[in-house]
């Protein structure tokens, strides 16, 4: 077989085979499997054909359930069909998987195995998803490396055709799906030749066809179902043999030999580990070392997990094996053991040849590291007199004491270069490292591996790249460990102050720093720990001012190629001349189509890089320096949990936290983002009170709650720090009061949105506004003090403020603050607003997506509490169920209130007539709510004195007597697609809930895939050729119910309308739907100007603003009110400023022109429709909705 080496990640390796062997591919995005769908879509979009010359049709569905249904239909109608998924997505496919398997349908699902959400969501890898599919009847085939992800993908597609049993082919999420490695590729011809076309013909013959009609999917009765179910057994019995034969065929043509149970280790091993997936790489390394010490140990890699062949398993196990440890990368609470362990036990028991000892253990949940020392610890435990059963490895379990102890350090081979790079998500570090791995993989005989760790923050997110290069295939399926790196690069100087950049550096390692400090002065800038590490480890230090080089080359901000060039120079993996040529050639390949200037400037940066690279002379001793300003200092005054647990996670040391440190049920206190103080801004907004007009637009628009306003008694300023600024508050209602605008300097990411919306300008110098972005260095110390003082100033009582006004809303504390959302995020201003307007009685059901990640991804949450300790109570259930989840909250609150009212009524004789007011309270306004809180406090006092059981019951539910506000929040992927069924059901429910759709018009969190909210003509992943169909009009669908309050808002277009819509939605006693235009980095815009984009969206009619209020209908007035004027600009003028539209005009001008024209028609058509609807009065009587 012709083969060649390629550098790909696991997703691409599997997707290449899947695309080559499919005719229909049904997709839906989910991390970490999304890239497989994206690649398949992009290939088909480009016209790339499958093995038989046909372009596979790639179709996106509304959910994984939809993808599975489509797959099922396509398969039964004779097409070769595949899909890609992970985690919850696989769970949604389960019902169809039973069907496909039950009907003996050849099919393959490729899975980047990922954790299933339990106490928390996790995007990382383990086998809990595939283990949930083990009973469906699908064959389960496991790949442990990128090479295997390709090879076993082919085995799966071939074996399913031969066996008729559908296959689930899986590999570890991130560790394999996202690891870039050098593999031998399978060419299209070889892939085609591997597949027996007669089997495809058989698949077609079984297909639904009116020329030879059959019936599939009958309903069967007790008389025959059981027998029919057993009829499939011979097919399952044949699978292990078929897969073995397919593996042998592959070996014959590639030389790469796989077995369904593959043994590695000493031929007479006494102790054996059984496991599947990438962790086997670490075990083989441990075995090699133990074998060199004469230990008889081995490993069985399980490749074909289902159907499980007991005989094949027994045959693979050396007869000498005395003790076996079965490692499961999943957890099944309550089971006698995890699934693989139980299967191994059963298999051995059935063969009648059970070794002395078989134990099960868990490892690697949610991508927890699994290293050779951990494997050694497992082997060691099998030696112990009483080996631990159901152990865990890789954590410290100080509660159940299940964990095995292991060595933290592992010395890797000397002939492997190990390089670690610290960068930011936005600086191109990862991209450059992927290119470096490719260069080394393709230009040398070295094997190469790249693995990239991202943090969960969307702004200022850190990345760590782990690269290995060596003379042998690299099996190290774990991160580069402490003291192991031969090269460390820190692409962002400030990271030296935040994390232990040199922890991984070995003795004599090379450290490359990007800094504007010169080689002569840089030493003085280091914190103490860095100086010490450099001198202790005898590190060779180099510095380059990559920013300057990039600027000179016309690539300001793009430091990647500069640092890449320096890496090659210093690492010596490839002669530097060769490397420079290769880097340039990669640049030309990667960027060539973007324009000659892009290549020229990047080449120029490469040429300039080495001139600016300088070695730093290291003093003999670290010298006297001020101590490292650690986290501890920042966290003084924080709650105990934050100081003990949260701080550890913030420092990147969460792996060290023992089981006892964590809540048992995933419940966390809110109000923790304020302790992060990330200080990631280079510029922050600085207020000039002499110009300010008190409009509060800055505070409303701020996505991060980092600029705030407050009205207060001027007397308060007596104790103010000297630099604290304030002015007389404007407006009659604030007569005699002072007003201030204050930045939270450490929490502001410096997005500049506030400055963009500030309308007040200096008369003398128009660029000077009431707030201006200024370098943080000049202001940090003063503004820190000011902010601390600001936080101490008492807030005005809520009921004294007009909450449905821009200014009034902003005078209330934001109870959503300092999130890790992208700087300038278009979603968060809306969440912050509802937290201000209703925060002290807010319950939020949050769909999975961006808002659940910046809202609830550890270590901290931006949701917080007011001075009374009240604040939003927040929960994320899933992606698809959020509407129903929120409805459940409403139903519970209503029942609790009903119970409370009943109990108050029952206890009236004891409570006295004062309690009647509780039952009759008008809580439509803030004052009424405040009064009710007072009454409930009084009630609790009284109840305390009562001995009655009813009093105890009432105490438990009394809070429900105060009006609460249920908001069901999510993105368009949820509301328009996967959760629409639930949203629709909720819209029809008449219940008092509020739905807030943060409409970014794409699946933002998973990386910008198209949804039904994506507009025509926009480019997105899964719509690489520009979306051909128009955006779904969700508001119209909701209005059709007649009793749903519907508002379409865009804060940047009309702030007053936004605030009023939120107030009206909340006041509406039935279902309210607010669709909020949310600019996103996926739009390809500079987020600083996002509010301006919103204005143009409304001005062009692209995003018309309206409110539909059923109450108006009831009053005989039109229900629909258009809040934006007829379009005053063309859609094309708006679209030209957003890359999502503009890119298509560059890539395919003809199609862009056609789609843009149709998009303009969509706008004109919709506007005409809405104008007519304004004059429509519906005759159906508006349902009288009672609150609650």
């Amino acid at each position, binding site marked *: 077989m012709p083969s060649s080496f390629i550098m790909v990640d696991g997703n691409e390796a599997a997707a290449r085979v899947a695309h080559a062997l499919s005719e229909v591919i049904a997709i839906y995005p989910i991390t970490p499997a999304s890239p497989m769908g994206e690649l398949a879509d992009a290939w088909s979009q480009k016209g790339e054909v499958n093995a038989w010359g046909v372009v596979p049709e790639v179709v996106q569905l509304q959910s994984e359930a939809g993808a599975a249904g489509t797959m099922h239909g396509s398969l039964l109608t004779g097409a070769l069909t595949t899909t890609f998924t992970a985690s919850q997505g696989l769970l949604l496919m389960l019902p169809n998987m039973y069907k496909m398997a039950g009907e003996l349908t050849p099919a393959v699902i490729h899975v980047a195995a990922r954790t299933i959400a339990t106490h928390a969501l996790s995007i990382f890898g383990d086998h809990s998803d595939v283990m949930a599919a083990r009973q469906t009847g699908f064959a389960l085939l496991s790949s442990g490396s990128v090479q295997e992800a390709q090879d076993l993908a082919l085995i799966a597609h071939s074996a399913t055709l031969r066996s008729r049993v559908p296959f689930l082919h899986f590999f570890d999420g991130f560790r394999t799906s996202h690891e870039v490695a050098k593999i031998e590729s399978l060419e299209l011809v070889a892939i085609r030749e591997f597949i027996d076309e007669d089997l495809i013909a058989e698949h077609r013959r079984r297909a639904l066809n009116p020329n030879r009609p059959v019936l599939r999917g009958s309903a069967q009765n007790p008389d025959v179902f059981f027998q029919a179910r057993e009829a499939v057994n011979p097919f399952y019995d044949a699978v292990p043999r078929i897969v073995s034969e397919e593996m042998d065929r592959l070996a014959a043509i590639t030389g790469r030999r796989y077995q369904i149970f593959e043994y590695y280790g000493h031929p007479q091993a006494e102790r054996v580990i059984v496991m599947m997936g990438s962790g086997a790489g670490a075990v083989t390394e441990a075995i090699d070392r133990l074998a060199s010490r004469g230990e008889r140990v081995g490993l069985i890699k399980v490749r074909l997990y289902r159907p499980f062949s007991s005989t094949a398993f027994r045959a693979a196990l050396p007869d000498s094996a005395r003790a076996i440890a079965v490692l499961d990368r999943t957890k099944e609470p309550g089971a006698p053991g995890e699934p693989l362990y139980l299967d191994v036990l059963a298999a051995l028991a059935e063969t009648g040849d059970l070794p002395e000892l078989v134990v099960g253990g868990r490892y690697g949940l949610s991508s927890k590291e699994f290293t050779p020392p951990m494997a050694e610890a497992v082997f060691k435990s099998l030696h112990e007199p009483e080996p631990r059963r159901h152990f865990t490895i890789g954590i410290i379990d100080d509660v159940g004491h299940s964990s095995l102890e292991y060595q933290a350090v592992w010395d890797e081979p000397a002939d492997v270069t190990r390089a670690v790079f610290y960068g*930011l998500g936005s600086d191109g570090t990862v991209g450059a490292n992927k290119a470096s791995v490719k260069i080394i993989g393709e230009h040398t005989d070295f094997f190469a591996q790249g693995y990239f760790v991202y943090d969960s923050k969307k702004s200022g997110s850190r990345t760590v790249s782990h690269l290995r290069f060596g003379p042998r295939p690299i099996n190290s399926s774990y991160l580069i460990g402490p003291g192991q790196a031969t090269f460390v690069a820190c692409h962002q100087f400030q990271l030296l102050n935040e994390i232990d950049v040199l922890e991984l550096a070995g003795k004599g390692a090379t450290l490359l720093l990007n800094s504007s400090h010169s080689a002569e002065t840089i030493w003085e800038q280091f914190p103490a720990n860095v100086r010490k590490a450099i001198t202790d480890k005898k590190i060779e230090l180099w510095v380059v001012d990559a920013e300057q080089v990039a600027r000179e080359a016309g690539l300001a901000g793009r430091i990647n190629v500069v640092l890449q060039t320096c890496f090659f120079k210093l690492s010596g993996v490839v002669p530097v001349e060769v490397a420079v040529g290769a880097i340039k050639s990669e640049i030309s390949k990667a960027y060539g189509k*973007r*324009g000659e200037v892009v290549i020229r400037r990047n080449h120029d940066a490469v040429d300039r890089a080495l001139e600016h690279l300088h070695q730093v002379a290291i003093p003999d001793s670290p010298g006297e320096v001020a101590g490292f300003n650690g986290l501890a200092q920042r966290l003084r005054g924080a709650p105990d949990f934050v100081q003990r647990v949260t701080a550890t996670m913030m420092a990147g040391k969460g792996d060290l936290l023992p089981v006892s440190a964590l809540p048992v049920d995933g419940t966390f206190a809110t109000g923790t983002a304020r302790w992060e103080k990330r200080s990631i801004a280079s510029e922050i907004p600085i207020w000039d009170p002499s110009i300010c007009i008190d409009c509060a637009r800055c505070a409303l628009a701020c996505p991060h709650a980092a600029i705030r306003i407050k009205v207060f008694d001027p007397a308060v300023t007596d104790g103010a720090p000297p630099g604290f600024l304030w002015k007389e508050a404007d407006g009659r209602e604030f007569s005699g009061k002072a007003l201030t605008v204050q930045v939270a300097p450490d929490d502001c990411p410096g997005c500049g949105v506030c400055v963009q919306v500030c309308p007040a300008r200096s008369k003398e110098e128009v660029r000077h506004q009431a707030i201006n972005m200024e370098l943080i260095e000049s202001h940090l110390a003063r503004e820190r003090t000011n902010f601390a003082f600001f936080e101490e100033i008492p807030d005005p009582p809520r009921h004294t403020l007009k909450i449905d006004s821009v200014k009034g809303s902003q005078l209330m504390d934001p109870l959503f603050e300092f999130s890790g959302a992208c700087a300038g995020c278009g979603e968060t201003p809306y969440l912050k607003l509802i937290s201000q307007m209703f925060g002290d009685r807010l319950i939020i059901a949050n769909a999975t997506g*961006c808002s659940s990640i910046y809202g609830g991804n550890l270590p901290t949450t931006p949701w917080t509490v007011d001075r009374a300790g009240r604040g939003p109570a927040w929960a994320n259930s899933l992606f698809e169920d959020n509407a129903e989840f929120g409805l459940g909250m409403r139903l519970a609150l209503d029942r609790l209130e009903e119970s409370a009212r009943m109990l108050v009524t029952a206890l009236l004789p004891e409570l006295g007539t004062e309690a009647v007011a509780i039952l009759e309270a008008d809580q439509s306004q803030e004052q009424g709510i405040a009064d009710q809180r007072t009454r409930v406090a009084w009630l609790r006092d009284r109840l305390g004195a009562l001995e009655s059981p009813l009093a105890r019951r009432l105490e438990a539910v009394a809070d429900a007597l105060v009006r609460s506000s249920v908001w069901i929040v999510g993105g368009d992927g949820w509301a328009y697609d996967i959760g629409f069924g639930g949203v629709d059901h909720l819209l029809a429910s008449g219940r008092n809930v509020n739905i807030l759709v943060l409409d970014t018009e794409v699946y933002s969190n*998973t*990386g910008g895939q198209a949804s039904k909210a994506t507009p025509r003509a926009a480019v997105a992943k899964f719509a690489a050729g520009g979306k051909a169909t128009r955006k779904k009009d969700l508001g119209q669908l909701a209005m059709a119910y007649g009793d749903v309050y519907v508002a379409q808002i865009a804060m940047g277009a009309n702030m007053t309308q936004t605030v009023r819509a939120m107030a009206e939605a909340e006041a509406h006693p039935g279902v309210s739907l607010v669709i909020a235009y949310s600019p996103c*980095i996926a739009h390809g815009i500079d987020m600083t100007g996002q509010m301006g984009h919103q204005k143009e969206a409304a001005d062009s009619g692209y995003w018309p603003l309206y409110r539909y209020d059923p109450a108006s209908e009831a009053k005989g007035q039109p229900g629909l009110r258009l809040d934006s004027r007829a379009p005053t600009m063309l859609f094309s003028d708006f679209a030209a400023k957003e890359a999502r539209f503009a890119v298509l005009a560059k890539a395919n001008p003809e199609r862009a022109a056609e789609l843009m024209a149709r998009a303009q028609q969509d706008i004109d058509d919709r506007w005409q429709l809405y104008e007519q609807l304004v004059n429509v009065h519906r005759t159906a009587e508006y349902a009288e909705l009672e609150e609650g």
Partner: protein
Amino acid sequence: MIVDLTTTYLGLTLAHPVMPSASPLTGDLDHLHQLVEAGASAVVLPSLFEEQIEHEAMALHHGLEWVAGTGEATSGFLPEMDTYNTGPRDYLDLVRGARRELGIPVIASLNGTSTGGWTLYAKILADEGIDALELNVYFVAADFSLSSSEVEYQYLRLVSSVRQAVQVPLAVKVGPYFSSMASMGRRLVDAGADGLVLFNRFYQPDIDLDQMEVAPNLVLSTPAEARLALRWIAILRGRIDCSLAATTGIHGAEEAIKMILAGADVTMMASALLRHGPERLTATINGLREWLQEHQYLSVEQAKGSLSQQSVSDPVAFERSNYMKTLISYTAEW
């Protein structure tokens, strides 16, 4: 009497000396066809702007790169396309269409920002077989450290580098802001210019009083603005060895005739065509023909330069201070 309207410009023989200069009207084939129907003897296409090409490519690059690696979006947010039309493709399509369909000489225009860019794109355009190339040199010398002689040197250097790179006839379109226009004109010719286009009208900044911000916009020219070019064409005519094109303020036959009398080989129109449509071109050609007939000129060549500085009885009139001359003229009428 039939007047011979033919003229020679940059070595090209043109049916008459009236043609559209670079403007949005010459930027698409539909409008170009209208101009040809209206009688244009040649066309100057709008400028290919190196800066814009580079800006678009870099904006695209930035847009595709800068958010890669945010959260779960490990490969960025927008799908990578097969090709991007970030280079001069649109412009080259226009050049090809114009050459294929118009049947009159097509002059491309180029505005570069770097020496490499000027020569690169000049070569690309020359390879397309354009009849001539107009270098649209636009350079605001706002750098306080740059002397006037250094500015002049930059002009000369770029003209000579383009000259060395391409064989195609080369016109240089410049603004009037040289201390010594006569000397500069000669040196541009020495550097390799086959013709001078006098003068460029630049986008000038304006202030938007509603938005309180600087808002550059182009105001259409008026006939009065033709005087500046008139003076310099009259002065340069016969004194330097190159073609002369008059542009700015030519709104009809009157200005065109004056320019030809002063010594222009061709006259170029933009504002009048934008304001009145392509038919203004026809009217100008007809007006020119009629005037020459009325005044019994046999040809444009005969009229060309007949009132140049070298040809008039009072050559100093072209050099005298405007204020004095105007004042005396007015009083003389009294």
